[in-house]
């Protein structure tokens, strides 16, 4: 049987020796490369509609391929022999259609979605020869070629021809061909396996004549063999020895979130995602496998109890381009977003802001891959030390032009609102508080004894306003529209998609976050498949309109406070002589803040196949993320009785990355294995700068949009600038032997501009190895139910240059905000000269066991890892006599993160109509400081403890409430003596502050169930976490003292001490700062009493969809349609009192939102 490309009509059928014939087969274009459209394949499986008049067989095949995804293999000569075809069928079975068009002398055979067309009758000569061979039982050769559904040869596929007891194996070569010689006549089973493709199994009858086979492997449907994006390439789970997890579009699309990072929550073992608030557009913190670095900027004073700690976040790469803004806030001005002070569990004092990822439409994302261990990340070297997140956007797929439209609209509300006291409860609490201090409330504002209580004496005692509801209670809406046009031919594909998203705020006012995105991707490949280019471009425009001042803390306003708005919506500043300025949050809401963020990302990939197996390529990318901001303080929002100053602030922030990465890929079959090498270089330049102009003294509220109209003397400017250049050379060598043993080596040399001239370069590397033990016959035999088993491990190093540029130099800067000294602009030195610091080095060990059972319907992964970051790059505190409080240098301190990760994927039920799949993951990470020379004598003494997690918090150890005095009591530094007045400072300074809490997440995870029944599908995903975090008392005892003129969460009721003998959770009330009980209250705010366990399980996502039947759709020319309901943060089960367990310690903040979205998806 001869094979010729359908498209190469010039090649006539010729008789040649077999080996020559097969050489021709490298012209693999005889498969018209239309990828399988999953949707159409599923919906219209094997149904064909054709209306062809006198067309070539080739044309018919093309049409059938488009409709069914079936490929055709046919000899050119046969096509000519067959002549033109006429057929007219509607929704006919493929088999029936094939029977009609492939009549004698043609015959066909369907092998795994490929229709092999052949001559029914072998020639007489062939017949004779075959018969003779059979009779003589001559051995014969088997020659084959393995290609994928795009016609590309598959190099390194495992080929095994077996029969009871024996097997003959080989691997396909660089042309995808294999040859097994002199095989005895038998009926063999041929098994072809290759990563990312479904296993091909076929019975081969060898009866003495040489056999040539053409085999097509189809993309895998098993999770194990699905291709996932890894560093500079792709690899399947099967052969991956690194720790890599991918979340696909399928999982992302079901979550009605506008920030793609939120869609990762609970989905990936080892990945901690933390929403900082429920404000649209707000920051989402990301951490992979715990905190590695220690750097804290020291204070002159050594007594601050909880210093700001760093929070490591991974490297973010979008379509191969390092995301310029990384996960930094894009805003610099204050707004409702920054007003949400986030404290939960992180203790990094991170000022909450606008997330840069808010400007990427989740609907444009194909997959998000999380790289965790040294094997996976070390090729990113110094940049990847804290893990890497690869975001890959959607690419066009060959096939008919497809238009896909999704519209959904949703309703948001606080997922876990706090119940505050009502007026009656509040008044009672306040009266008790004043009574406790022996005071009688009065209405004299000049009474400094603390008895002045307008809420009890002047305000209406029966009026009730639920401020929580007034501030956060608005039901908000979400609208999301996404349209995508894609298609193309094998060599040219495209996608263009556009999206609009609008989320409004819970706050009263016209506030919203709106996003407009345009995504496109083009692919071109030359017809000989040697040359290809890809261009992907994303543009996002995000507009966040809010106000400059927080109303959040005002949920604690007295519930009987007079109205703050007049009948016409005017601001009320005074009630019966009581000044309401500090309560007037509506004024803050009338100070507009406008933020406009632009994200432009373009990624260009070009590659050329020089030789078989040798490809040169380059990635080039540019990302720019810029933000314009304006916040205004009009006179209309200020108390006219006070000092009115109109003010307007302007900010511009820009992050840019240029990235160029030339690469060479080499793949070759060596022995029974496949060797591949990647050698490349990286050049990266990051520039970020920001400018802020603050102007005041305007003459009118209507001029606040411009800086021009402010008096020149009242304009203040500042800017920041950072530059980073990075270059690296790297190599990755990979050898997969016999589909059983895997060895992966990476090495790299990095240069960073952040270091002094003699320390710019560093070398890093990793080694990974894996053994797929189920490839061992003995194992396979002993454990027949085990379909896959792999033991893998990796060890390697990566570095961190977590510093800013120029920090090694002694630099001078202008002393800002101070007038010129005698006409001379003053400058001062702010950096000590230290050219000697260099990379912090992280060493990572990763061991994983992967198991697959029952034909991989159950897949398990268990991973153990241990990361140690040493040679820490820290601001080392110095005695001030040297001139400045610290210098950046390497410190021989080591932080360890050690943990276990478990992942399970199962297909519980898979029938024609019903399927049920489950996934589950669970992570335990333990962080520990294992070395820190001379810790006790450094300013880090009250920050870290050797042998303890870096998330430790210092404070007073709380005991309980003394039943006699009614005051909080604490333990002194010795841990035994009880006092109600512990001393500030470390024990070494005579203080009583000891480690009191560890805020690290103890365990976290998620589990999802996916059900489909006919056209219905239901997805339920739950996420859980357990940590020790600040409870609601943190805010009560640090900001809104119990008994003061503040409302409190209902949870305090009945819990405070009232009379001697009471055993209570909270101490006696204090009505003001002159109360004798205030000191212990403030100490409690620094004690272990404000920390408690925070365990929650959140029904994160519920997604229900219904696919409309085709019979209906065909009438309206729609290929597919579905309606869906997606819900996010639907229910929460928690032991956490008052406030959202995800944003602990903050009951006044806008909590995480519950979203309910209804939508429609149409495919044209």
């Amino acid at each position: 049987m001869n094979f010729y490309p359908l498209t190469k009509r010039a090649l006539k059928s010729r008789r040649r020796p077999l080996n020559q014939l097969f050489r021709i087969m490298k012209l693999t274009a005889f498969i018209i490369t239309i990828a399988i459209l999953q949707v159409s394949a599923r919906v219209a499986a094997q149904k064909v509609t054709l209306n062809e008049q006198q067309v070539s067989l080739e044309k018919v095949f093309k049409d059938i391929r488009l409709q069914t995804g079936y490929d055709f293999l046919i000899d050119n000569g046969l096509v000519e022999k067959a002549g033109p075809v006429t057929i007219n069928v509607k929704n006919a079975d493929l088999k029936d259609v094939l029977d009609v068009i492939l009549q004698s002398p043609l015959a066909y055979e369907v092998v795994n979605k490929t229709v092999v067309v052949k001559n029914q009758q072998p020639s007489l000569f062939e017949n004779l020869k075959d018969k003779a061979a059979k009779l003589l039982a001559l051995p014969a050769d088997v020659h084959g070629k393995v290609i994928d559904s795009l016609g590309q040869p598959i190099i390194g596929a495992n080929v095994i021809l077996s029969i009871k007891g024996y097997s003959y194996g080989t691997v396909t070569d660089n042309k995808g061909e294999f040859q097994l010689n002199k095989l005895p006549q038998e009926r063999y089973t041929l098994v072809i396996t290759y990563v990312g493709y479904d296993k091909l199994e076929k019975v081969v009858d060898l009866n003495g004549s040489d056999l040539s086979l053409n085999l097509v492997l189809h993309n895998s449907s098993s999770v194990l063999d699905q291709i996932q994006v890894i560093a500079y390439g792709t690899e399947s789970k099967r052969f991956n020895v690194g720790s890599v997890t991918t979340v696909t579009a399928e999982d992302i699309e079901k979550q009605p979130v506008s920030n793609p990072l939120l869609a990762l929550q609970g989905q990936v073992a080892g990945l901690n995602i933390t929403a900082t608030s429920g404000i649209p557009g707000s920051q989402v913190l990301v951490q992979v496998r715990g905190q590695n670095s220690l750097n804290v900027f020291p204070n002159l004073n050594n007594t601050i109890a909880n210093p700001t700690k760093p929070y490591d976040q991974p490297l973010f790469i979008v379509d191969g381009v390092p995301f310029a803004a990384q996960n930094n806030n894009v805003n610099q001005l204050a707004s409702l977003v920054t007003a949400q002070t986030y404290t939960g569990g992180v203790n990094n004092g991170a000022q909450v802001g606008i997330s840069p990822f808010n400007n990427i439409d989740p609907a444009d994302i194909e997959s998000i891959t999380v790289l965790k261990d040294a094997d996976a990340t070390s090729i990113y070297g110094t940049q990847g030390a804290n893990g890497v997140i690869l975001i890959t956007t959607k690419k066009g797929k060959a096939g008919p032009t497809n238009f896909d439209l999704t519209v959904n609209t949703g309703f948001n509300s606080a997922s876990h609102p706090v119940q505050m006291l009502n007026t009656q409860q509040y008044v009672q609490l306040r009266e008790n508080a004043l009574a406790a201090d022996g005071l009688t409330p009065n209405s004299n504002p000049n009474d400094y004894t603390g008895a002045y209580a307008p809420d009890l004496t002047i305000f209406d005692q029966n009026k009730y306003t639920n401020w929580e509801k007034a501030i956060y209670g608005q039901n908000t809406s979400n609208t999301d529209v996404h349209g995508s046009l894609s298609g193309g031919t094998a060599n040219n594909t495209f996608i263009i998609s556009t999206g609009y998203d609008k989320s409004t705020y819970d706050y009263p006012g016209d506030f919203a976050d709106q996003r407009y995105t345009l995504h496109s991707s083009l692919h071109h490949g030359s017809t000989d498949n040697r040359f290809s280019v890809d261009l992907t471009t994303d543009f996002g425009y995000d507009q966040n309109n809010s106000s400059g001042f927080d109303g959040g803390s005002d949920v604690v306003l007295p519930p009987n406070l007079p109205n703050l708005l007049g009948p016409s919506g005017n601001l009320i500043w005074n009630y019966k002589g009581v000044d309401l300025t500090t309560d007037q949050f509506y004024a803050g809401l009338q100070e507009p803040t406008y933020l406009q963020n632009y994200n432009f990302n373009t990624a260009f990939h070009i590659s050329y196949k020089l030789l078989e197996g040798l490809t040169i390529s380059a990635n080039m990318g540019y990302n720019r993320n810029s933000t314009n901001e304006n916040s205004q303080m009009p006179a209309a929002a200020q108390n006219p009785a006070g000092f009115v100053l109109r003010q307007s602030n302007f900010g511009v922030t820009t992050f840019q990355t240029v990235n160029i990465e030339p690469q060479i890929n080499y793949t070759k079959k060596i022995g029974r294995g496949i060797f591949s090498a990647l050698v490349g270089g990286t050049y990266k330049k990051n520039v970020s700068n920001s400018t802020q102009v603050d102007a005041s003294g305007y003459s009118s509220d209507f001029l606040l949009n411009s800086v021009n109209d402010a008096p020149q003397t009242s304009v203040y400017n500042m800017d920041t600038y950072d530059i980073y250049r990075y270059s690296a050379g790297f190599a990755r060598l990979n050898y997969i032997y016999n589909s059983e043993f895997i060895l992966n080596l990476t090495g790299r040399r990095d240069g960073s501009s952040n270091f002094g001239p003699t320390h710019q370069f560093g070398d890093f590397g990793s080694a990974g190895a894996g053994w797929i033990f189920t490839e061992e016959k003995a194992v396979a035999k002993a454990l027949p139910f085990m379909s896959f088993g792999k033991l893998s491990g990796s060890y390697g190093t990566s570095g961190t240059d977590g510093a800013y540029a120029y920090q090694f130099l002694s630099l001078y800067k202008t002393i800002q905000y101070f007038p010129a000294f005698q006409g001379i602009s003053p400058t001062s030195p702010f950096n000590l000269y230290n050219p000697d610091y260099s990379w912090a080095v992280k060493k990572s060990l990763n061991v994983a066991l992967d198991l697959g059972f029952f034909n991989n319907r159950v897949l398990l992964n268990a991973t153990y890892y241990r990361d140690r970051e040493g040679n820490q790059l820290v601001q080392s505190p110095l005695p001030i006599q040297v001139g400045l409080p610290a210098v950046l240098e390497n410190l021989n301190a080591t932080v360890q993160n050690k943990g276990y990760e478990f992942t399970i994927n199962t297909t519980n039920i898979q029938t024609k109509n019903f399927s049920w799949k489950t996934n589950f993951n669970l992570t335990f990470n333990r962080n520990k400081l294992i070395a820190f020379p001379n810790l006790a004598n450094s300013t880090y003494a009250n920050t870290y403890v050797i042998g303890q997690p870096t998330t430790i918090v210092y404070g007073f150890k709380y005991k309980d409430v003394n039943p006699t005095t009614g005051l909080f009591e604490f333990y002194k530094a010795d841990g035994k003596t009880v006092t109600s007045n512990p001393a500030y400072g470390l024990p070494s300074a005579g203080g009583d502050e000891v480690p009191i809490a560890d805020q690290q997440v103890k365990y976290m995870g998620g589990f999802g169930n996916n059900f489909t029944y006919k056209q219905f599908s239901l997805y339920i995903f739950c996420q859980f976490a357990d940590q020790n975090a600040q409870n609601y008392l943190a805010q009560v005892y640090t900001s809104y003292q119990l008994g003061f003129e503040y409302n409190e969460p209902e949870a305090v009721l009945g819990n405070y001490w009232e009379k001697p003998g009471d055993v209570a959770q909270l101490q006696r009330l204090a009505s003001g700062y002159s109360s004798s009980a205030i000191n212990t209250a403030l100490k409690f705010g620094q004690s272990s009493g404000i920390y408690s366990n925070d365990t929650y399980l959140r029904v994160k996502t519920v997604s229900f969809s219904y696919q409309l039947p085709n019979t209906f759709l065909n009438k309206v020319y729609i290929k597919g349609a579905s309606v869906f309901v997606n819900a996010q943060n639907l229910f929460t089960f928690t032991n956490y009192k008052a406030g959202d367990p995800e944003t602990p310690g903050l009951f006044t903040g806008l909590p995480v939102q519950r979203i309910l979205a209804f939508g429609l998806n149409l495919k044209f």
Partner: protein
Amino acid sequence: MFFDINKIMIGLLLVAASFASCKKLIEIPQNPPAEITRQEQFTDSASAISAVAGVYTYDTGTGFAYSDGTLTYSTGLSSDELTYTQTDDRQEFYNYTLTPINSGITSLWSYPYQSIYQVNDVLNGVTNNNGLSASFVKQVTGEMEVVRALYYFNMVNLFGGVPLVTTTNYAANEHIPRNTAAAIYSQVFKDLADARKKLTSAYPSSGRARPNLYTAVALLAKVNLYQGNWQNAYNEADSVIKSGLYSIADVPLSGVFLDGSNEAIWQIPAATDYSGVADAQLFVPYYPGAPLNYLLATPLVSAFEAGDQRFQNWVGSAVSGANTTVYYPYKYKDRQPGTPPEDQMILRLGEVYLIRAEAAAHLSNLTQALADVNVIRARAGLAASTADATSQAAVLNAVMHERQIELFCEWGNRWYDLKRTGTAATVLGAEKTGYSADAALYPIPEAQIQLDNLLIQNPGYTN
């Protein structure tokens, strides 16, 4: 086959390696836009002078130390000038219960060292610098030495011997012990002697914000006085008075602290265009009737003689609670700058007269001593001193009394006087409780001892 691979791979690795090691690829501009390197800062006099201005800029932390009022309030509370109405750790200065973690102590220790680093860096930058004219280098060097002398003079008076740092290499200075008080004084003398050689009588810029020759001489007079070098103190003070650059008689009490005061030898403008000097921020109430944090202590209030115009001009009063009149320092009056604005006074002719008076008294030139005291008294509207002109002790008493009144709440003069004359124990012991000999020196901040364990804490304090 393997040969091929090896050849290719080696070639590729070489390419990669050369990519990686290329320094050009990671070159960045020499300095960030808003900052310049030390070398660039001192390329010419126009930019070098900015670093000099930085030393004087009234900004705690990176500029002129003692710009936050800490020196005034701490020494005022520790002596018998002030009382404190609040309950925070400033009260420890008054009660002599200072702990090494007191925040005021941290300011008094840290800010001067940060300023000294700036001074050292400027000295370092202008020395052997071919881009600068010799006269410029001379002027700047002299000025910087005066500033450094001022800092070390105050450090040694507050803490005793402190680490002596005159270089900028942190590695050399981060682990050093305290020097003796004598060594610090010797550096102060050395700096001032050198400054005296380099400076001229002309102020290098308008006003008297940057030291001239007589600033160095006046400070030298003060240091000599503190060290009991009476003749030197006398001579230096004498030469300042006789320079003819300064006057007292024609400067009204209300004009002493104003910018352009003819009495000023060294005065520095306030921190910003929109606020007054730190002492005004500390003492003057926000609005009439606003609570006062600091009150003048009774011993000081009662030390004023009847009819002393300084009481009218330099003391503010308020009525508190049950018709009690309380007093507060009112030498600096403007929380917001007036016209002309007030400047922070560092050295003035009034003090120099009193230095000459005290030195003269010790040198038994009692007539001269009383004459100088009377110059001060005359301006205050008081009659000539009635002290017994034949008794050295009586004249010295008159001088010290005049110092107490004239120089109250001016950067530690009273506290230093009580200590150096050995009268602290008697005076303070009689006026309030808690004073002990150990209280004469403040503790070294705990954090500093942790960071440099060669620093030994002053007696009487535990870490």
